[in-house]
C-alpha cells in the first residue's frame, strides 16, 4: 500500500502530508494491536488456563489473579502510557482542509 507504489503517479508526487502522516500512524497503531495480542493472549493462556487447578500454585496481585494482572491490567496501564506518548509526542497535527461545498458538481 505504499503511495509511491501507485504506478499511475510520478515518483515525486506531491502527496498530502496529512495522508502520509495518518498512514504512518495507522501502521504504528496496527503494530501496537499486534504487540498487545502477542502479549496478552499467550501470557494469559499459558498462565491462566491450567489443566488442573492447584490452589497452592494460584497467586494474586492486589487481589487480581496474577495471570490477569500481568496479562491484562499491566498492559492496560502501559497502553495508556503509550497512548499518551502517541497522542502528545508522535501524532502530527495538520490542516484537515476547508469544508467542500455540498452544492458542488458532485452532489447528484
Amino acid at each position: 500500500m505504499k503511495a509511491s507504489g501507485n504506478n499511475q503517479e510520478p515518483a515525486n508526487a506531491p502527496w498530502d502530508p496529512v495522508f502520509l502522516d495518518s498512514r504512518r500512524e495507522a501502521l504504528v497503531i496496527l503494530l501496537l494491536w499486534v504487540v498487545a495480542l502477542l502479549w496478552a493472549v499467550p501470557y494469559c493462556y499459558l498462565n491462566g488456563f491450567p489443566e488442573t487447578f492447584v490452589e497452592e500454585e494460584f497467586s494474586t496481585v492486589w487481589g487480581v489473579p496474577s495471570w490477569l494482572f500481568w496479562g491484562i491490567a499491566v498492559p492496560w496501564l502501559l497502553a495508556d502510557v503509550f497512548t499518551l506518548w502517541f497522542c502528545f509526542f508522535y501524532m502530527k497535527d495538520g490542516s484537515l482542509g476547508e469544508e467542500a461545498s455540498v452544492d458542488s458538481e458532485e452532489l447528484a
Partner: protein
Amino acid sequence: MSLSSSFNISFLAEAGGVSPALFTFLAYTAVVFLLAVIANYLRKDGNFLREYFLGNRRLGVWAFALTFAATSASGGSFTGFPSKIYSHGWIMGLWIGSYIIFPICTMGFIGKRLNQVARRSGAITVPDVIRDRFRSASFGLLAVALIVFFMSFNLIAQFKAGSMMLKTLLTGVGVFESGVTFLRDSPAAHPDPAYLLCLFGFGLAVIAYTTYGGFQAVVWTDVMQGIVMVAGVIIMLPLALYLVGKEAPEGVGSLEYATSRMVDMSPPRRGVAVFRSSDPKGNSTPLGEGSWIQIPGSDEGAEPRLFKVIPKQALEERLRERGEPWIAVLEIISPGDRRQVVENQGDRVRSDFILGDLELQGYAYGAEDGRKGVYVTGPGPSPSSDAGFLPLSLVISFFFMWAISGSGQPASMVRLMAFNNTVTLRRSIFTVAVYYSLIYFPLVIIFCCARVLMPGMDAESDRIMPAMAVFLTENVGAGWLAGLLIAAPFAAVMSTVDSFLLMISSGLVRDIYQRNMNPEASERRLKRLSYLFTLLVGGAALLGAVHPPQFLQDIIVYTGSGLAACFLAPVVYAIYWPRSNVEGCMAGMLGGFAAHLSMYVGGHFANGSFFRPYRLMDFDPIIVGLLVSFLAGYLVTLRTPPPPEDLVRKYFYKPEASTGA
C-alpha cells in the same frame, strides 16, 4: 446497617420513600429534553443537513471524546457485560482484553484521514464519503442499503434492550404497577403489558429528543450520559470493595478476599423441582419467584441444601412438560455462597418445605464435584459448552472483535467525521483511553465482588447491575444514591439508540433523497424531511419492538460484526490506498457481507439455528468476514483498472497540487 437486614431487590421501589429508579428516569428524561431544546435553539443558520446530522464538524475535545465513548459503550456495557462477569468470573478480564488499546485503535486508526477525506468531499454521512471518494452512486446506495439493513434490526433490538432494562428497574414501583394493571385490563392486552409501557416510555422519549435536537442534541446528551456512566462506576467500586472487605480476615485485602472466595465457588445447578409444605395442614405461604428454601442434607452431618425459585421463563419448556406443581429452581452448591445467602436473607430463607421431586442439570464445563478455581482461571464456567466459556480460539476472536471491528462501525465513523481539528483528535484519543480504563476493568472487579456478595443471581444475572446498585447503596445507608447508579445503564442504551436512529434517517434523507432523487431540494424541504424520517424510523423501530424478536443479544452481535465486515476494509482502502478503486472496494464490501452471512447461514444447517453461527476453525464469523473483505478488496483492485487520476489527486494530493494540476 447489616447485610441481612437490608437487601431486597423489591426495595428498589421504596428506598428513601421515593423510587430512585422512577425518579432517575423522569429527571433524566427532563434533562435530556432540556438539552435537545437548547441544541435546537442554538442551531446555526447555514447548511441544515450538515448541522442536523453532523454538528457542522465543530466538536471539541470533551464533546467528541464523550460522544464517541458513550456511543461505543452500548447498553451491553452495563447489562450484558456485568451479567457475564457475574456468570463467568475473572475470565471476563481477558474477554474484554483488547479494550486496552480500543480507543487508540478505533479513533486513531482511521480518524484523522477519514475526517480529511470527508471535508474534501463535503460528506455528511459514511455512504456520502464512499460515494464521493469513488464517484459512484451505486456504491453509495449499496452502503446505505447495508447500513439501513443492519441498523434497523439493531435499533429494534436496542429498543427492546432499553425497555427490558426499564422494566427491571421499575417493577414494584406503585405508579408503574397501576399503569401495568390498567393495560392488562384493556381490551387489546399485550402479553407483557409492563414491557409495552416501558417501550413506549423509553422509545417515545428517545425519538422525541433525537428528532427535535438532531446530532447536537445527541452529542450533548451523550456527554451527560458519558459522565453519568463513569460516575456510576467510580462510586460503585469503593462501595463494593468496602462491603466485601468487611468480612475479610485481618490483614487480607478486600479484593484478595473476594478472589479467595471465588476460588472455592462451584457453578450452581439449575432444574425443576416439587416442594411440599412440611406443615401437616398445608398452611405455608406459597413459594414465589425469588423465594429461598433450605432443606436438611440427605446424610447425617451433611450441610443443608439451599434452593432458589427462579423465573419460570428460564426453564419454560421443561415446566410445560411436567406441569403443576413443578417449579424452576437453582441450587447453590458452594458452602461459602450458602452461608452468604443465609446471612443476606436472614428470616426470609424458608424451611417450612420438604423436597418432593428434583431434576437438576449442572454446567457443561466447571461443575465437576470438588472442582476449584473455575471462576478465577480460564476458560471459565459455561452452562452450555464443554470447552468452557472462553477457549483460546474465542480469546483471539474477541481480540479482533473489539479493537478491529470497533474501527469498522459506521456510527463511530460519523463521529470521526465530526471533530474540528487534529488537536481535538489527539486529546480525545487520550481522554477516551483514560475514560475506558476507569470503566471496564473496574466493572470486572465490581461484579466479581457481586458474585461474592450476592450469590444466587445466576438465573437473573441481567438484573445484576440494578440489584448491585441497590445492594451497595442501602448497605452504606445511602439508598438515594441507587438512582444515580441506575442511571448509568439508561445512559448507555440511550446514547447508542439515538445515534443509530440518526444514522438511518441521514441515510434516507441525505443519501437516498437528496443525492439520488432530488439534488435541488430546498433547505426547508430537507429540514422537514429530516424531522419526518427521524420520527418515522424511530416509530417503525418502536412498533417493531412491540413484538420483539427473540434473540436480542444475538441480533446485536450479528449486526455489529456484520457492519464491520462490510465497512472496515472498503473505508481503510479508500482513505489509505491511492490505487483502490470502486470495483475492488465494492467487492470488499460485498465479500465481507457474504462471508459473514454465510457463517450464520451455515450455523442454521450445522447447529440448527441462524444465531449459532458456524465457526470456521473455531473462529468467530467476524474474523472470516474481515479476512474475506480485505482479501477480496485487494485482489479485485489489482485486477481492475486504476481509478481516474483526478480522483487520486483530489483525495491524496496537497490541495494546491490537486487543483493546480
